[in-house]
């Protein structure tokens, strides 16, 4: 039950992230420190390899989502120095956010919760790119948003769109 674990370096500090569905992710401190939330928390309490801190996470972060986040943090904790430099890292980033929309939201939310700013940048940009070239109806469908405009307002707004799309 230690997915996403890197080869343990002797005596390095570890922390266990526990998802709501019971999965545990054991990560090293460098990985955990990519997350502002975890970094701050761990600076409070500390952790050791023999007796790692267990940090429970809210239910909105499933193990699948956390896997993505941990994958990102591990790659970026290693930095551009390994596995082909910055170019490879950029490519990794690009591929990481090629997700279906539900997953994309969950990773976005997890990145926000765990305070991983650069991952949040990636996912937010991916969402922004996804909205481009969508009609109003498509955006509503994509986000599952129900229009709450009154009939009159809707009419006014509909008259606005032809001008923009002229």
């Amino acid at each position: 039950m230690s997915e996403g674990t890197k080869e343990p370096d002797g005596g390095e500090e570890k922390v266990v992230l526990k998802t709501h569905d019971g999965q545990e992710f054991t990560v090293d401190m460098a990985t955990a420190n990519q997350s502002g939330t975890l970094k701050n928390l761990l600076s409070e309490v500390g952790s050791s390899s023999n007796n790692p801190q267990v940090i429970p996470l809210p239910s909105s972060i499933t193990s699948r989502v956390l896997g993505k986040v941990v994958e990102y943090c591990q790659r970026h904790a290693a930095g551009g120095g390994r596995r082909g430099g910055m170019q490879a890292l950029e490519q990794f980033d690009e591929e990481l956010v090629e997700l279906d929309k539900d997953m994309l939201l969950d990773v976005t939310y997890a990145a926000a919760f765990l305070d991983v700013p650069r991952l949040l940048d990636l996912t937010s940009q991916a969402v922004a790119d996804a909205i481009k070239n969508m009609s109003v109806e498509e955006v509503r469908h994509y986000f599952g948003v129900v229009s709450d405009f009154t009939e009159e307002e809707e009419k006014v707004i509909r008259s606005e769109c032809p001008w923009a799309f002229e």
Partner: protein
Amino acid sequence: MLIVLPSSATCPAIGGCRLWPHVGPTYCVEKLSREERGVTGVRAYFPTLTPSQDTGFSVFGFAAWSCAFLGGSCTSIQDTRAIQSIETEHVKLFCGSWIHKIFGKPLVCATALFCIQIYLKSAQMSFRRIVRDVRDSFGSLSRRSFEVRISGLLGHHKGKSYSSVNEPHDFSQITQQSHWATLPPELLRDVIKRLEESEAAWPSRKHVVACAAVCRAWREMCKEIVRSPEFCGKLTFPISLKQPGPRDGMIQCFIKRDKSKLTYRLYLCLSPAVLVENGKFLLSAKRNPRTTCTEYVISTDADNISRSSSTYVGKLRSNFIGTKFRIYDTQPPYSGAALCPGRTSRRFYSKKVSPKVPSGSYPIAQVTYELNVLGTRGPRRMHCIMHSIPASAVEPGGIVPGQPDNLVARSLEDSFRSMSSLSSFMDRSLDFSSSHFSTTTGGAQEGFEATTDTKERALVLRNKPPRWHEQLQCWCLNFRGRVTIASVKNFQLIAATQPTAVGPTTTTTAQPSGSGHDKIILQFGKVAKDTFTMDYRYPLSAFQAFAICLSSFDTKLACE
């Protein structure tokens, strides 16, 4: 509002967690709302047995964690540390009996209770999300009792008025809605911000307009993110056509004339080239010759240009000989404007008119072409009184008041929202005008003069006088390459420093030649047969600039 978290064993933020062993099993979190926009907070109470330095720290850490857990990503330990230093003096010790009073039963044998207030960065952090997370986290153990509590809270919650648009009215909808619908607003804001930044140019800017049409929350957000052209230099929503142009630089447009159909179309230049075929359509106008005057109907629809359409935004009307023009807007100018309501506005406010038709008509400007003493070849003299813009707008720190800030045309919105209040306002100004002005051929200029004591002086624009070029033997103006063909219609407008032509009452208020007076506010000129460029800037709007240019198209008996 209090959210009571029943037991540590069922809450994942506590359950199985050895970080805070000294924290008692029960604590409660209260949602706080501040008056200022954009701030929401959570206040957490929890008992601790020995508030020592060490536990104090951890207690705060725990508070931050649980608040972050409840509210999203908004707080971190750093915030809490900061809060601790500020809040240490505010940390209140509560005795157990106080808790007993609230909950009806003793909680734990806590001797002290820490109270921590944490203000989340975003007010938009929806309560829905908090509730969903909290509810999810309890699993099956205490769901029923928790739901009872939530429904109890709901009644309480409904009694209060919350401004946030994201507050759900029915918590039962929470789980039924799509995952995406609960996207935290600050994340959505970030997404839309990115979209707005990347789609800076037309035609792809239409995606920003599409986002504003999704739902109310999105619309609010788009309205906040998209700045007015005055500050960002970009046109986005149709309403930006009636907002002042940029303070820095000009918005470059061109006008296409169709002589056979008597139509004029205004486009936004998408490239710096003078002669371009495609641009972003902005406004259209149709010339309607009448027996006593000429009228130009202005619309946001490229093809259907009529006064009865909802796309009608205003008009330009000339006098019989075509030397004096008045610009009418469907929206009223700011209330301090030197406004003289015309006949049409009186008609509009009769109760018979359907309130859904935006047919208000307010004279907002007057353009006068002076008789030309030099004959047909010489330059014309233009004189524009902008009733809706105070002269102070071009002074340092000046503003254009009463700008329409809604995406929806204000008159349109008001017409079905607050028809009564608006009409009472107009009634008052009608009374005012009838008691102070003569009701005959008074006209906007005289109305303007009569109101200068009580109202702010209107901005006056005049054309920059051309210089006689000896070598070329013609009158010249420097258009900096934006105009290529000589025409009597070409002009550049600047703010008039000496409002001599306005009337005797204003000569005493001659203003010092400020910095804003040498700038060209509007320039218009020919670049090809039936193609003209129009560049405008603050304080004019695209609509006003277009209307002024249209007046230049009209044949003037006295000037040509």
